[in-house]
């Protein structure tokens, strides 16, 4: 498998402070969420990936290029959307995107055409002709995203892409990321604090805490609970249904119309429908138990803290 990112024991030390402590992970296809509390080393890691700073030790490759030596090639192939606002006062939105295209080596006229095309994709209308200093936060986010993808990069590194966006724009932004990944085969590393965004858009997740990778797994793995089970909700009082089910499986009542049954899904659904028919209790919904990403995140961070102390 060709990995978009391969990192091997990356260490970054700022005099006395250890920012990254042997970070190793591999990122394949799809979208990978990079999670971590403040000061975990996410920004440092992104800077190292882009060749903005050198790692104290360790090695890594992005799209097959050495991060220590081939920063120019890497930056041509990577689209980076920073978390902070970054703009040049006095330039319009379309000029900014064209500027980014030119800096990546696109011919001037083609850069302008491509800038318009990408701004259309990002949902930016006539405001593209306004000076960027007059833009709202949401417009600036879209502009940064447009600048990151204008040169058609293979890998996107997005730092808090939905920060400051209203709910509608947030969904649109995540859809754009998903479109690029699913339809265009791009890979994306999304650094964010917003866990629902990760759940919505990511295929894999990397959790960084205190400069270490504490979890590197697919979302499927993360979602898989330690104990299998189903949450069942009924339209009528659930007591009779629960009693019947409790004869075969451990059941935990969670109110008048809800229960949790601790059992593997395989074959259980059929039994539930039969029981529903027997007890005359209508089932409203059945949900498999999943891990909460919040819990996984908090546990991963806590484990590192405990290990350090």
């Amino acid at each position, binding site marked *: 498998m060709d990995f978009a990112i391969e990192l091997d024991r990356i260490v970054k030390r700022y005099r006395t402070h250890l920012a990254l402590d042997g970070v190793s992970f591999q990122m394949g296809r799809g979208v990978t969420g990079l999670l971590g509390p403040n000061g975990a080393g996410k920004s440092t890691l992104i800077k190292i990936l882009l060749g903005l700073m050198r790692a104290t030790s360790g090695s890594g490759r992005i799209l097959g290029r050495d991060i220590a030596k081939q920063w120019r090639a890497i930056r041509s192939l990577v689209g980076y959307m920073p978390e902070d606002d970054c703009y040049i006062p006095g330039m319009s939105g379309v000029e900014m995107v064209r500027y980014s295209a030119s800096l990546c080596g696109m011919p001037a006229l083609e850069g302008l055409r491509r800038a318009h095309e990408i701004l*259309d994709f990002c949902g930016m209308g006539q405001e593209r002709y306004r000076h960027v200093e007059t833009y709202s936060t949401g417009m600036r986010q879209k502009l940064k995203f447009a600048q990151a993808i204008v040169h058609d990069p293979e890998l996107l590194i997005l730092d808090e892409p939905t920060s400051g966006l209203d709910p509608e724009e947030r969904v649109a932004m995540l859809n754009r990321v998903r479109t690029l990944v699913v339809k265009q085969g791009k890979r994306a590393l999304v650094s964010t604090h917003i866990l629902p965004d990760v759940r919505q858009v990511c295929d894999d997740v990397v959790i960084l805490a205190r400069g270490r990778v504490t979890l590197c797994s697919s979302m499927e793995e993360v979602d898989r609970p330690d104990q299998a089970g189903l949450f069942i909700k009924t339209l009528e009082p659930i007591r009779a249904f629960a009693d019947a089910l409790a004869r075969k499986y451990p059941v935990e009542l969670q109110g008048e119309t809800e229960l949790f049954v601790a059992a593997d899904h395989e074959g259980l659904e059929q039994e539930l429908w039969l029981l529903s028919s027997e007890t005359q209790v209508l089932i409203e919904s059945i949900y498999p138990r999943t891990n909460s990403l919040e819990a996984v995140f908090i546990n991963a961070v806590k484990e590192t803290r405990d290990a350090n102390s």
Partner: protein
Amino acid sequence: MPIHDVGYRPWQGVKSPRIHGWWIMLLTNIMILRRNGWVRRAMAAAWLPTIYLGAGFYTLETALHATDRQSARTFVGMFQAVVPADVIQFIAKDVLTPDDIGHLRHRIWGHLIASFLSYPQALAGMLLIGLIAPALISRDLRTRAYLIYFSKPVGVREYLAGKYLTLIVYVGAITLLPALALFLFGVGLSPDFGVLWDTWDLPIRTVLASLVFLIPTATIALMFSSLTHESRYAAVGWFVFWLLSFAAWQTVYSARYLSLQYEVYYEGQLPERLEYLLDEVDSRRQFDEAAQLMIGQYIAKEAGDSVWSLLSMYESIRRVQLWLLSTGQPMPVSHLLMVSCVTLFSFVVLLRRVTAPLRL
């Protein structure tokens, strides 16, 4: 909902294999600055002294070839402060041989261009730099625009080159360009192209003298710009730096000048080779313009011949420029060193400040 939306399409074109980030930055900065009315007005005003110098070149060429001395007197009246007195005396001679003309032309053109670069254009250049440079890096720091460059295939060297070139193009357009235009104007006014033989080295010297101004000033200005996120503080720092250093040197210079003037005029202390000037003034008991000029230039030179002149960066640059554009001047080693050291120091600070956000 859009009526038509092509969505995202991969880009199939061919990228430039070697991207010249500095060139793209230069073009973009020129585009932004072209919209600034103050910059446009300042640049137009900065070309005005060229007209005066052009008239000077015209008068000089007329004086060198005319039989009457009226043009020579006009030229002396226009440029007595900047052209050496012995040259002025020489030009006033009734008959000039072709050898005299060739020699004089080279010296006078060199002095005129040096004065042009050192006085009006240096002042205009500093004002223009004060208008353009403070925002060049401080703005990028404030708006984090450096991330736009450093997330693209642009290195720190190219980033700095783009900033330097922006200043060099703008300030060069009001210093080097008019100086070369004056040279060409002078050549055009000459009766034959033999003038090119006499003055072939002047364009090269002019380019070097302009660079002596452009590189240190651009480096210092960019250093000030990199020290702050607010361009107005950088602008204040820039002007205060030049004003304070110039004022410090002018104070010392004025004290030395007045003291020497007293010694010469009241105590008659002049070097042996110049004593005849005083006799000439005394014997005629009238104001002798040429003698007065020579004495004045002697006092100015003696007063300026002090290590305190190193206090002023402007003075150091001026002396190096004068050395480059004059023949027979001794190399101002200490001033050259001073200019080099300040430029180097500023560059190191600039480099550290530009890379600082990346190191965190």
